[in-house]
């Protein structure tokens, strides 16, 4: 049949106008094919104060976005919907393992999701994510990213995931109710079995819960050594009766005073401290985890155009800055950092001092798929 030339003739314009008036095409389609959308965007770009971010005439529908709890700016998402007409469906997950399980089972319907550094190589290996077409997201700049965080998302020189923000895993202590002032993982676990019995929470997450139990003995956060893992399991099982709970959504319990101490990620620590100054975020001096979360597009994403539009939007420095302000995890992008207030850039929760930062380890890919780790976590939970 006739090839679609993209050029709009007067006849075609009228035809499209009739179709639009009849309601058989949407306004978006009409503006798209006639070029009116683009024209409006170009013209309005010249008018100050009336500047749509992008002329996304081609995208529509919904965007299924999968992420972690308390981890985005609703205002940013609303503005994206306002500008593009694409509504965002947010699903909240509790662990990377769970995300992997859903993607392995197939047909998730996700368009964009937020994997953590140590999972990306497995996603690539299992062919569950697509290489990102960086040309479709011009607002992302690889060269302004902190080089520490660019590695995990790039495999054999191909970008499979772009950094969202980074952070650490420590613990939060309510200094009003817990008089102790723990500074290490050793003290963390000892307090659980001692004075803070019934008042502490650990993550429902193998990587951090087992990893930080390993740190008690000074082992590597990523250890898969049989003896070291057995030690960690012994500590976990001994702590189990003393725990208030095993839950990755620990903010509610910390806020209402049920729990006084909890394993904690940077962003939750920053949010808790912002609202309740008595909440202290502590990095164990033995080390622990440093992480970087990414945006990635799973294979078979139903709305890839919207996915790219979203990534391009959310990685724009001024939009990204609003994200950072909302969730409190530090940015990987130096352009975004320039837009952030001084107080935030000096916040020790987000930017710990070098001697606390240097012993931290990135989670290792092997921990994600290790059946031994999974089984230790299961035995700990079932105990």
């Amino acid at each position, binding site marked *: 049949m006739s090839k679609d030339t993209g050029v709009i003739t007067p006849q075609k314009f009228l035809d499209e106008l009739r179709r639009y008036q009849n309601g058989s095409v949407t306004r978006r389609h009409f503006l798209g094919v006639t070029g009116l959308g683009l024209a409006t965007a170009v013209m309005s770009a010249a008018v100050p104060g009336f500047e749509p971010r992008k002329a996304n005439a081609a995208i529509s529908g919904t965007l299924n976005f999968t992420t972690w709890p308390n981890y985005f700016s609703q205002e940013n998402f609303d503005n994206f919907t306002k500008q593009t007409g694409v509504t965002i469906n947010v699903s909240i997950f509790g*662990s990377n*393992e*769970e995300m*992997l*399980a*859903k993607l*392995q089972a197939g047909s998730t319907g996700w368009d964009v999701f937020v994997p953590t550094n140590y999972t990306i190589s*497995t996603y690539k*290996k*299992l062919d569950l994510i697509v290489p990102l077409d960086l040309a479709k997201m011009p607002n992302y700049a690889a060269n302004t990213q902190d080089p520490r965080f660019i590695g995990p998302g790039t495999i054999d020189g191909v970008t499979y995931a772009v950094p969202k923000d980074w952070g650490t895993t420590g613990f939060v202590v309510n200094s009003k109710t817990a008089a102790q002032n723990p500074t290490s993982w050793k003290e963390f676990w000892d307090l659980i079995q001692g004075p803070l019995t*019934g008042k502490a929470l650990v993550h*429902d997450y*193998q990587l951090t819960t087992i990893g930080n139990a390993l740190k008690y003995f000074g082992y590597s956060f990523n250890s898969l050594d049989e003896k070291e893992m057995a030690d960690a399991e012994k500590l976990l099982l001994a702590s189990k009766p003393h*725990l*208030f*709970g*095993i*839950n990755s959504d620990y903010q*509610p*319990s910390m806020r*209402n*005073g*049920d729990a006084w101490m909890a394993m904690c990620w940077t962003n939750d620590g920053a949010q808790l401290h912002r609202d309740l100054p008595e909440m202290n975020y502590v990095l164990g001096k033995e080390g622990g985890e440093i992480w970087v979360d990414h945006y990635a597009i799973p294979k078979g994403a139903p709305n890839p155009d919207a996915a790219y539009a979203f990534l391009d939007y959310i990685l724009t420095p001024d939009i990204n800055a609003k994200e950072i302000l909302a969730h409190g995890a530090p940015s990987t992008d130096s352009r975004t950092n320039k837009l952030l207030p001084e107080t935030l850039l000096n916040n020790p929760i987000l930017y710990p001092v070098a001697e606390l930062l240097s012993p931290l380890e990135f989670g290792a890919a092997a921990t994600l*798929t290790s*059946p031994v780790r*999974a*089984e230790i*976590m*299961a*035995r700990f*939970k*079932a*105990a």
Partner: protein
Amino acid sequence: MNEKKHSRLITALLLAPAGVFMFFLLVLPLIVMLVYSFGERAPEGGYEAAFTLNNYLNLPSRSKAFANTLTLAPFATFLTVLFAYPMAYFLAVYVSPKWRVTMLVLVMAPFWTSQLLRYYAWIMILGAQGVPSWLAWIGISDVRIINTPWAVLIGAVYGFLPLMVPPIYVSLEKLDKRLLEASADLGANSIRSFFQITLPLSLPGVATGSMLVFILLMGDYILPQFLGGGKVYFIGNALVDLFLQSRNWPFGAAVSIALVIIMFVTMFFYMRFMLGKTDNRRVAMV
């Protein structure tokens, strides 16, 4: 002959929707599960074809979860009956027929909001700022409810009461009031009449209600997750972890099969016991 064929066709057509439904959503998944339960976990998680009994031999590693479920689920069901029975009795005997429907609708009203929201509300009610702080006010301090089996039991009674009341209500409403009159004429006081007539005749309702609640509780994982906070671990939680965290589908399938068998056996004996009881009474009364 033709007529017979015709009626057979009608029977087939009537059964077809349920048959197709059951085949694709019950029989087929069960077969898949059975096949998976003899497989092995793939290196990255998931399923790899194999023939091994290891998954079944590994079942004792989840014995605590089975034990928790098999004690808490029946106990919670029993508690729910204790709360639901007086409510149903009140509805069937004391409430005027004009108001009964309204009252029944009110019993069901909690179902109009999401279960998750209601559990979040219970987290607040049972948490430190809730009931324990009121108890501290009257001098009973250091009570912890949330993240204990008690919180799960409270949540279960609250959550499943609306499922238990209607079946009991129906069986009580059907009750022939003349039997009670006869009993009174023969000199039985009301307590004796209740235990010898009302209660036995309403047992089918109790049996139906308890089955509904028990089956749902046996597979539940949201309730223990929310109100047990990871400290009360049901077989449902073990399954969720096996499929979503460990991604050990074959072992998960074996645990599921074990759960199905346990449910089937429990149900079988429970129903036989309950129905046996009511049948005898009925025969005796005729």
